[in-house]
């Protein structure tokens, strides 16, 4: 994130858990994106990784749940949350 972007893209950090971590093959990554919402960002990653069908996925930005229409900003930490199964 030291270089300033010139294409309007932002840098975000993604962490993957559970089925998504195994599917993607890593626990986290940093990437540049032109997505403006977390929903767009998910679509971008889904095109790249072909996520499995997971039912209702949720999303968190900077350790808080967010709507899919929430903005994604430079430096954000984003987690996509597959259906949970605690207990």
């Amino acid at each position: 994130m030291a270089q300033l972007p010139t294409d309007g893209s932002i840098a975000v950090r993604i962490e993957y858990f559970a089925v998504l971590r195994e599917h993607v093959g890593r626990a986290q990554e940093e990437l540049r994106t032109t997505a403006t919402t977390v929903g767009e960002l998910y679509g971008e990653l889904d095109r790249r990784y072909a996520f499995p069908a997971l039912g209702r996925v949720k999303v968190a930005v900077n350790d808080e749940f967010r709507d899919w229409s929430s903005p994604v900003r430079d430096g954000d930490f984003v987690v996509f949350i597959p259906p949970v199964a605690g207990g």
Partner: protein
Amino acid sequence: MSHFEFSREPFTPERYRSRVSDPVAGGYASFEGWVRNHNEGRGVQRLEYEGYEALGIKEGDRIVAEAFARFPIAQAHCVHRLGVLGIGDLAVWVGVTAAHREAAFAACRYIIDEVKNRVPIWKKEHYAEGDSGWINCEVRTSGAPAGSALP
């Protein structure tokens, strides 16, 4: 201090007893989730819990705060295990104290139900046949590297 925490090591409810002790409390209701040897007709040998801890602690603490708001309880606490567990191991503990047992039961039930529904924890079951699966995610693997799932 959060009323919800994760434990990467085995724990006993006694360790957290002091978190719910209260001289005004006449009732203590608790729930413990244990790893059982079967699920949906399949033999289970062990399982793994993975958690998104930073958000999980926040969400778990919110759930307990909701229980305090809804029911006249004295103390409440919840601990969820992470890592690899065997049959009979303690996976989650909820303890609630209250002056009266109705509130203790209701709050305990509320907390475990909401924790299971809302806290970002995932469970992978390893079956007797050697395969495994992430519960609620409808993805089963046979031990091969992931990556072949359909879009």
